[in-house]
């Protein structure tokens, strides 16, 4: 009781996968429940621990949170849309 913990609630985010990542994992969209204050980097580690195709994702893929590129240290908020972005090939 001497150590103050973070708020007890959890947050839900939606993970999106595209193109080669989608085919690698076999998943297009996934709802994930996470502890408060989870960062993008922590979420990625969590996903890779699921094994299978998830484990074969790159260690540090590009990630967009709510449709903007983000950093590993970005903290997630409830309702965020987190997309794993394979190397792009537009144009």
């Amino acid at each position, binding site marked *: 009781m001497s150590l103050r913990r973070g708020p007890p609630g959890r947050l839900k985010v939606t993970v999106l996968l595209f193109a080669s990542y989608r085919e690698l994992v076999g998943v297009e969209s996934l709802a994930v429940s996470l502890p408060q204050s989870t960062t993008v980097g922590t979420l990625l580690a969590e996903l890779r621990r699921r094994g299978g195709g998830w484990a074969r994702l790159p260690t540090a893929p590009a990630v*967009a949170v709510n449709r*903007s*590129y*983000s950093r590993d240290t970005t903290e997630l908020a409830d309702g965020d849309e987190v997309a794993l*972005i*394979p*190397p*792009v090939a*537009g*144009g």
Partner: protein
Amino acid sequence: MPWWEVTTDPIDPAVLQRRVAMPGNGAVSLFLGTVRNVNEGRGVRAVEYEAYGEMASEELGRIVAEAAALAGTDRVAAVHRVGRLGVGEASVAIAVSSPHRADAFAGARHVIEEIKRRLPIWKREHYVDGRSEWLSGTEPTTAAARAPEAPL
């Protein structure tokens, strides 16, 4: 005003050209990207573009706004097509008009370079030998590092 779109519809460059036309702007730079019949020595029959649609549209809007600031004009238009495209079809078109030709060129150049660097769009090439593959692309991480609007 800037204009942009990510769409499955065929691209008509004349439409873009009209969108940026303005009587005071005497220079128009138009860029088209078309599907090539060969890539790295392999014959290509068609290309399938997949997009993270909502983000691609937002990101293209940011790119267009940057180009407008860079070129000192609001007459910037860009469209990226997605879906299955045959050889020779346009996958991307960009138009910038300006009173100054250097600005028009610089604006169009910025848009295509940034599209290639950071637009969340992927390309599966279908080869004449019947196989198909996702094209290895460009890591968009540098865009995140420098994006002023990176969240938090």
